[in-house]
């Protein structure tokens, strides 16, 4: 399997299961980067992913000013990392993607004993602008 420049293929699916936490970086209009961990980057379709918004206050503020986000996802099988450059599309608080993400997050929270902490505020949909293999 190969990875097209801007398309998510099956090769990346293991990295999008929420096994390895991801780190996202946004940037304010003033040029100040903000980094944060996220539980899961979720596959929507070959052009889009969803980020689980649980605690992302500053990230949401930055995205309102500047829609770009950088995220690294890691494959739990071979530890290969990929860097994705994303552009914000919309926030969803209902529907298929939100429901599936909430279910998966509930499972992750249960495994980590954090059921009272992990609350999905929204499934934030991003367009994939580029994909780069890191290591």
């Amino acid at each position, binding site marked *: 399997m190969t990875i097209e420049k801007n398309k998510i293929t099956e090769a990346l699916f293991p990295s999008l299961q929420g096994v390895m936490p991801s*780190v996202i970086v946004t940037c304010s209009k003033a*040029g100040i980067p903000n980094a944060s961990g996220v539980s899961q980057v979720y596959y929507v379709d070959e052009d889009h992913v969803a980020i689980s918004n649980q605690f992302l206050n500053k990230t949401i503020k930055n995205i309102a000013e500047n829609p770009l986000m950088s*995220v690294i996802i890691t494959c739990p099988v071979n530890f290969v990392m990929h860097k994705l450059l994303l552009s914000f599309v919309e926030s969803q608080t209902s529907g298929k993607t939100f429901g599936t993400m909430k279910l998966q997050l509930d499972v992750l929270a249960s495994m980590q004993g954090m059921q009272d902490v992990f609350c999905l505020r929204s499934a934030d949909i991003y367009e994939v602008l580029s994909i780069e293999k890191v290591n």
Partner: protein
Amino acid sequence: MLNTYHKTFLSSPGISIWLGSANAHNVPDTVRATGLTLEENDIICCYVSQNDASQLLQNISENKRISLVASEISNFVTYQYKATVIATYTSNREEEIIQEKFMDNFCTTLTNIFPLPKEKIYNMYLRLPSVSIKFKVEKIFEQSPKKDTGGEVFA
């Protein structure tokens, strides 16, 4: 700013560390770091594989603001350190040894939690040579997963 608590936290063996930067057009970038050294006066020196650092170095040449996020993988305690870059240079052998020890400790902690192959992870994550990114911390934010997280920490 970097009090005893944060120095201890940043020296713990199981922390995962990442750097965030942005270029002059505010396009963000993420890289995994492979170790750090604490210096006096709130200065941290962080190490990144040269293979991963080209965009980071380009961004720093355009915008000196940087963000370090450090997360303890055993309990998810997480802090973000916002800083301004002071210097970048090719890591010396002494700094490579620091990274080898840091990543060995990290991989040991990781594989004690998850049944993963330590040597494989170590070799995938630590790829020398590296660059050293030295920066002065100006603000700290708590980012541990809990309600109302994200607030600035005042030492």
